[in-house]
Every structure is written in C-alpha cells, then in structure tokens.
C-alpha cells in the first residue's frame, strides 16, 4: 500500500471510520463499505481528499438512505436524434454548457447541446445569487481562483456582446468586532496578492455614510468594488441564443444515458431520443457530472450536493441599499460563499444563501430552519428589512467535489472527453473563462481529426427581441402601433406586455412552460407571484403553441396547471 493510501487510512481511522475501505482505481481514491449516516459519508469523503490523487470517488452506502444516488426518471423515449452526427456534443444546459457551446461556435464545428430538462438553467444556473464575485474569498492556487479572476474581468465584454444586464454595485464584507479592523493591513496584502482591484478597508463611520441602513453591529468593512450582479438565467439564455444563432443545435428533454466506445474513444452518445455520433464530448452536467464521467469510463470524483436557500424581497426594498452586504469570512475553511444581501437588477433584494449538506441532488425543498437562518443571518445586514418583505424563496444545490475545486481538463482515460465539473460557487462568475479554456481543450482534440478553422460567420452579438420598457415613449408607441400586443400589459407587478410573452414563446429557444415564460419575460416574478397573470399566460401559451390549456405545464412534463374544463365555458372564453 502506498504512503498516501496509508495517510488516508489514518485520517479515516482518526474520524472513527476505520471500517471504510479505500482502494485506488484509475488514479483516484475509491471509498467503499457502509456508514451510518450522511454526516459520516461526508466525513469519509473529506478525510480522503487533499492527497496526491486525481480525486475522491465516494461509493459508500448510507444506512437507511437508498435512492440518493439515483437520477430522476428518464424523459419520453423516441428516436428523433438517431444517427445525427456532431463534431462536439456538450452535455448540460446550465451556464457552463451554454457558454462552452457559444465559444465553440467560433470554429467551423458542428455543435449540439443536450439538456435533460424542458428548459435551460433549470438547475444550479437558475438557482443562485447571481454574483460576479471578486476573488477576495477564494483560495489562491485553486482553479476556482484562476477562473474567478479571469471570468470577472471578462464579464463586461460578454454582457455587451450578448446583451444582458450587468451592474457593479461592489460588495461589503462587514466586520463585527473592533479588533478585526487590525486585520486591515493583512487584508490589504491578501487583496493585492489576489488581484482584487480597488480593495479598501472602511471604518464604521464610512460604512454608515456609504450605506446608512447597514447592519447595526458592524464595526467596519472590507470593500470590493469589483463585485457584479447579473441575472444568471438571462446569462445562460443569452449564451445559448447566441450559440444557436451561430449554428449550435440545442436539444431539450434529451438525457444522456450512456456512451458507445471504441477502446479509449467515445464514438456515440446514447440518449432517450436516439444515439448521436460525436467527435468530442464535453461533460458540463453540473450536479450529475460524476454520473456522466462514470458512464464514460472516467470516474475520479463524486459530487455531493450542498443546498442553498435564497429569499427574494419585494422591489420596494430596493432603494434601501446600494451595495452587496455580507459578513467578512475570516476563516479560509468556510465552505460557502458567504452571500448576504444582493441588490438585484430589477430592484429586488436577494437574501441568502444558506449552506446545508443534503443527499438529494435535485432536492429543492425548503425548510423552516433554512428560512430562519436567512432572517437571522442575512436580513439583519440591512436594518430596514423585515420578514414580511419576502415575496418568495427557493433552493439550489452546489455541485461540490470532496476536493472542493473545479475540474476542468481533458480526460486522462478517454481521449475525446473534456470535464467541466465540480463547478460550485463561483461558477457563474467563472463561466466566461471556463468556456474559453474548454473550447481550447476541445480544439486540441479536434485538430488531429479535422481541418479546424475559424468560423467566418461567427457573430458575437446576440439578436434581441424588443424590450418596450427600455424604449423612449416615441419608439414604444411606434412598436405598439405596429403590434398592439406590446401595449397590452399582462403581468401587473412587473409590467410585462403580451407582446413580450409571445416573443418569449417564439424565441429561438422557445419558452413552453409557465416558469419558462416567467424566467424569460418576468411575468409572474413580482409581489403577487403570478396570482393575477397566471390565467392569461396559460391562455397565451395554449393559443401560441396550439395546445389545450390542460396540456400547459408549470415547469416540466407532468406539472399540469389546469386539470379539466368546467361544465360550462367561462365568459372570458366565449367572449373571444
């Protein structure tokens, strides 16, 4: 047994987990056996991490937990993609997969992106804080750090090209003990080492002056001006639409079930909709990336979900705060991006996230104690906020490896597979940089097989549908005159017109569910949470897609909104 393996054994024994078996496979550590609970499962994983192996594969069974490794049921089966052939197949329609697809279209390659859900960004990319972090809180020397730094600096240009909103409110990491201000010079040194531009240490008085409603208990703050805010869903859609404009094909409801291989090379990707031929495969499957790696025969990491709950506050709170407010994390061991209170693009404030280790990868349920944590820990950072300002809350799961770092590399065991995995926070902030590197790795592989050239028709600018609220009164009236539906408001809280909803339904990547319309056009996002506009949006969806209202779903197949028609037609129906 190697020395490293022994070290791991000792670490496990120290954690009272001596019965866990450790073996080495394909350069990775594999844990086997059974433990009593999830806590032990995690402890074993962490005890095994940090050695000179490719990663930790945690195959431990957990007493009383049966289904935690299972993926949810497969989407409907057909053969519509059978024998299609692509130079690159990207697995996963989160921000990472979409950004990679878009970057790949700079070359003359045929790209397909496969996403198992009925819309993009249904998972982590649609369930996060939307912050473009500064690098202050990430560890030097990690991939997280490198990509965060580069990603942050790329965002301005990407936002301009793709036409999504981005602002740089800057963030406060507040202190709550007087002695902590003594850390100022040390923090300044760290900031300069990490390339945090404009870093400052603010006195208590200065914080009060800049942010009068800030936390009562603050004793000063670190200030990182280069912290940005985006709508992560919009970023994902923007990348995807531009990728499509440049030739990428996106297949929704398409789940990768396995691979066909010829020695160390993947030849085809098996999905619920048939088998596609593929030159290079990119694993951007988020919380399921380890499953994809396993199916491909290159298993060297296990992902464990870390759930984060987020609350959204009423727009009327927006004017009470200008900066992102958080607490300073003085220990580098902290496993979360602290979060806090984030002023969002549309005037709402976001509070959270929490961080809890849970077995369920797509377990988006929320619990009372999680919301309580947000109230106690985050809401207090702005003294004007109250529990009653919360209009909604939801959860996401971070795709964590036991090494707690991104995995962005060409597979050592499968010659045409690239991993973009373990992309927990700050994955959104890092996405533009990750995409560029993964594109180059794919190009590296492709270059031996084909005549790789730049795509002469590549257009970095995304085509945008009209946005009436951004137009001058005159321009808006011109638009309404041509298409009166732009003048018909449907969502009362967010003032979204019917025209914008129709545009979302007929966008390059069509919004086909109530939630997709909500995410694209903001209808239903406001304080009444769709109470008023839901009936109208259901009708518009049915009309525009030629379906029955009883077929319109909230977010995924099976989530029907209307079960039946009543015995008599409603008057809004007969009036039409």
């Amino acid at each position, binding site marked *: 047994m190697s020395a490293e393996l022994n070290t791991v054994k000792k670490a496990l024994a120290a954690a009272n987990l001596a019965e866990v078996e450790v073996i080495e496979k394909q350069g990775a550590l594999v844990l086997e056996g059974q433990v009593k609970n999830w806590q032990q499962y995690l402890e074993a994983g962490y005890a095994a991490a940090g050695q000179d192996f490719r990663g930790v594969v945690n195959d431990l069974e957990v007493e009383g937990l049966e289904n935690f490794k299972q993926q949810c049921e497969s989407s409907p089966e057909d053969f519509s993609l059978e024998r299609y052939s692509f130079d690159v197949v990207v697995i996963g329609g989160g921000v990472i997969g979409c950004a990679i697809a878009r970057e790949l279209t700079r070359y003359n390659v045929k790209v397909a992106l496969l996403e198992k859900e009925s819309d993009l960004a249904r998972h982590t990319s649609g369930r996060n804080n939307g912050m473009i972090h500064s690098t202050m809180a990430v560890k030097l020397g990690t991939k997280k750090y490198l990509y965060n730094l580069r990603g942050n600096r790329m965002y301005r240009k990407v936002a301009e090209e793709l036409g999504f909103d981005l602002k740089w409110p800057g963030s406060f990491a507040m202190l709550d003990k007087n002695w902590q201000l003594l850390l100022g010079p040390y923090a300044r040194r760290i900031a300069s080492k990490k390339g945090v531009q404009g870093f400052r240490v603010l006195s208590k008085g200065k914080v009060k002056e800049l942010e009068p409603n800030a936390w009562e208990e603050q004793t000063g703050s670190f200030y990182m001006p280069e912290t940005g805010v985006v709508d992560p869903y919009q970023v994902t859609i923007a990348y995807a639409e531009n990728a499509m404009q440049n030739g990428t094909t996106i297949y929704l409801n398409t789940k990768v079930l396995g691979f066909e291989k010829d020695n160390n090379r993947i030849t085809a990707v098996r999905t619920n909709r048939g088998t596609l031929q593929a030159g290079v495969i990119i694993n951007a499957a988020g919380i399921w990336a380890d499953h994809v790696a396993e199916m491909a025969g290159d298993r060297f990491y296990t992902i464990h979900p870390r759930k984060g709950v987020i609350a959204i506050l009423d727009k009327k709170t927006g004017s009470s705060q200008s900066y992102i407010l958080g607490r300073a994390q003085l220990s580098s061991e902290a496993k979360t991006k602290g979060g806090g209170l984030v002023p969002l693009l549309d005037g709402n404030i976001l509070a959270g996230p929490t961080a809890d280790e849970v077995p369920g990868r797509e377990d988006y349920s929320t619990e009372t104690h999680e919301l309580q944590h947000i109230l106690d820990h985050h809401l207090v950072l702005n003294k004007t906020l109250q529990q009653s300002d919360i209009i909604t809350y939801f959860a996401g799961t971070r795709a964590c490896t036991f090494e707690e770092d991104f995995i962005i590399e060409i597979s050592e065991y499968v010659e045409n597979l690239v991993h973009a995995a373990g992309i927990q926070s700050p994955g959104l902030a890092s996405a533009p940089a990750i995409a560029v590197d993964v594109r180059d790795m794919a190009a590296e592989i492709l270059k031996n097989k084909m005549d790789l050239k730049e795509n002469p028709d590549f257009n970095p600018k995304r085509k945008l549908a009209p946005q009436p609220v951004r137009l001058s009164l005159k321009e808006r009236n011109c638009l309404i005159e041509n298409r009166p539906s732009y003048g018909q408001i449907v969502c009362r809280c967010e003032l979204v017109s019917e025209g914008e909803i129709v545009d979302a339904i007929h966008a390059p990547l069509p919004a086909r569910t109530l939630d997709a319309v909500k995410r694209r056009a903001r209808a239903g996002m406001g304080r009444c949470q769709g109470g008023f506009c839901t009936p109208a949006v259901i009708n518009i969806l049915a009309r525009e897609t030629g379906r029955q209202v009883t077929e319109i779903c909230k977010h995924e197949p099976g*989530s029907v909104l209307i079960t039946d028609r*009543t015995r008599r037609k409603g008057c809004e129906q007969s009036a039409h």
Partner: protein
Amino acid sequence: MHTDVLVIGAGPAGLAAAAAAAEHGAEVLLVDRESRPGGILKQCIHDGFGVIRYEEKLTGPEYAYRDIEAVRAYGLRVLNNTFVLDLKQSVDGFSLLLQNPIDGAFRVDTKALVAANGCRERTSRQVFIHGDRPAGIYSAGTAQNLINLHGYLPGRKVVILGSGDIGMIMARRLTLEGAEVAGVYEIKDEPSGLTRNRVQCLDDYNIPLYLNTTVTRVHGTKRVTGVSVAAVGADLKPLPGSETLVPCDTLLLSVGLIPENDILEPLALEFDAKTGGPVVDQRMMTSVPGLFSCGNATHVNDMVDYVSESGFNAGRAAANYCQHGGSQGSVEVVSGNNLLYAVPQRLVSGEEAAIYFRSDKTIDRVILVAQAAGKELFREKYLRIRPPEMQKIVLQPLSPEVESVEIGLEEVT
C-alpha cells in the same frame, strides 16, 4: 390630455367614485387595466351583494352592472386595458403615464386623483409554506378567476388553507364543479370569514373545517401530491408529532387580502400599518392633497355596499377639491381598546362622518364608545362582535376645538 378627476380602477369603488364626481360637475376619466369594468366582482358569481344598498341579494356581476350603467349614463370617458406606468405630482395636480394597446403610452394631467385599485391576495410564500414548488398551488382568487371567468378547473382534489370568505366560497364552487374538497384548514380557533359563508358554503356541503390546524408542507415536485397538516399550539406553531398527510392535487390559499397601492409609492403618503392602506379622512382624502383612496385599496371591506359608499364619498370630495382645494382633516381618530383598526383615521370637523371598524378578537356583549377630551360622543351596544365582520357607526359633526377622537370597545362585565 387633461381632466379634473382621474379614477384608477373600475371596480365598485372606482365606479361609484366616477359617478359621484361626474354628478358633482367634474370632468372624469375612469381607467382600468382589465378589458371590462366591474373589478373583482366580475368573478364573484355567487349572490349576497347589495343587501344594504339595494336590500336585495345580487350576484357580483349584477351588482357591478348597475354601477356600470350609472357611469354610462353620465357619458364619462372610460379606458379599458389601460395601465398606469408612472405617476407623479405636478404643479396643479398629478401627471400620469398611461398605456393601452390602442392609444399606446400617453400622459394625462389631472387635478384630483382617486386610487381605487382594490386589493390582492397574500401568497403561499407569505405564509411560509415549505416543500418544493409543484404546480397546483393557487390563491383562492386565482382559482375563482380560472373557474368563473375561463371555465378551467384548477384541480380535482383540493385542500384549502385559510377560512377567508373567498376560500369558503371556492370550497362550494369547486364541489359544485365536481371536484372534491378534502377540507378547509384554519390556523386560528375560529373561521376568518363571515358566519353566513361558513354555513352556506361548508356546512351545507359537508365540507369539514379544521380549526387550530395548518398546512406545514407541500409534497410533490411536478404536481402537488399531498400536503402535511398539523395541529398548532397557542403560539400558532405546529405541534410536534401531530403532522398527517392529506393526499390532494391542489392547495388553495385563502389567507388574507392586501390593499394594493403600489402605484402610489412615488408619492410618499402616510400609510396605516394596520389597514395596509393610506391614512384618510371621511372624505377619503389621503395625506397628499387632491389624492383620494377608496374601496379595498383603503382597507379590506367585507361588504361591497361599504366599498361603494367610500367610492361615492371619494368621488364627491374629489369634484369638490377641483373647485375649492383643501387638505386632509386634522382631527386624529385613535383606535383604542379591543380595536383592530378604525377608518377613517382623520376627521374634518363640522361634517358628519361614518366610521368603520373591526374588533381584534371575538367578544360577547361589548359597548362601543367614541369620546373626545373625556366627553362621550357616541355609544352603541353589540351582543357579539367578530373581527371578520366590519361595523359602521356615524358620528355627528365635530366642533372645531376637538383635536382627537378615541374609539374603543368596552366589555360589559
């Protein structure tokens, strides 16, 4: 475009305000964001509207029809499908940016403004229900809209959380449409809606009402598959171990209404935290001169008749304001013992004033007393008083030296 009085909202409050303002000689513009006037009454197809005003039991649409006809008779301008995009104060009144599909976006200046926006429903998130977010969670009003206006059934097996009036009315409506209502769950120890609705909508249809019980969790990821319900203790917190699963495909919420005044936010007017609406005097004038509030936007009413009454008052006063100006009355109405709230919160001396109030709990045998500087102005006995049932009293004109009036309920021992 210019007008004397602009009324936002063509529900019963706005319709009454528009008619009254026109009657008193003002030029009136009535705007509503929906395609037809009538407000929420359009979807309230049950009867019981108008018992005070007409001494008849009308349905919501019938009640609204009479007001719509009255407005038509004045020939005033009505704009449907019209939204208020922006609102600000101007030198001689208010300037609004309106938009509809026909006229596009356009500015209107008005001397007086009546905000009759109605109310909206509290959502599942505002009562902190946990679990995932499957389809099948609706507010009772949305379900009422789907069934009565569109002919769509939101589900087949329904649990209703909260015993507000709309919830109880929907329990009956769903039953009549062939859905099964598993029960109405109320966290408090008595229903929050009217007694007549409990009898006519639940008891008559054998729909169980569970008091001191709440929904703690929603199950299902695609469509609701059930809810967990639990008994609650005196602190209204779920009692450990009392949770049971009720299978259902739909959860309806009838957990309260909130006056809707979002468009007034830019005007910085005084609000009453207890009603959720602006502070008004008996003319329904807010703290901003020339801005009036009425109907459910001022406070949530239990009877449409009172809503219309407040609309008439606001409309008449708005027309008057255009000619004579004026500002909010300065006499303060203090809600004292056992009162949830009282509206109006201010009074103009020298004019009769109707005061509407709710008790903060159910009390048997009480006396309402209104007094100013220790002098009793009014007294009335009630055998039983319940928070869902709003009460009305009329105060005689106050003399000019009165600075505040205190209203309270005294228990008879």
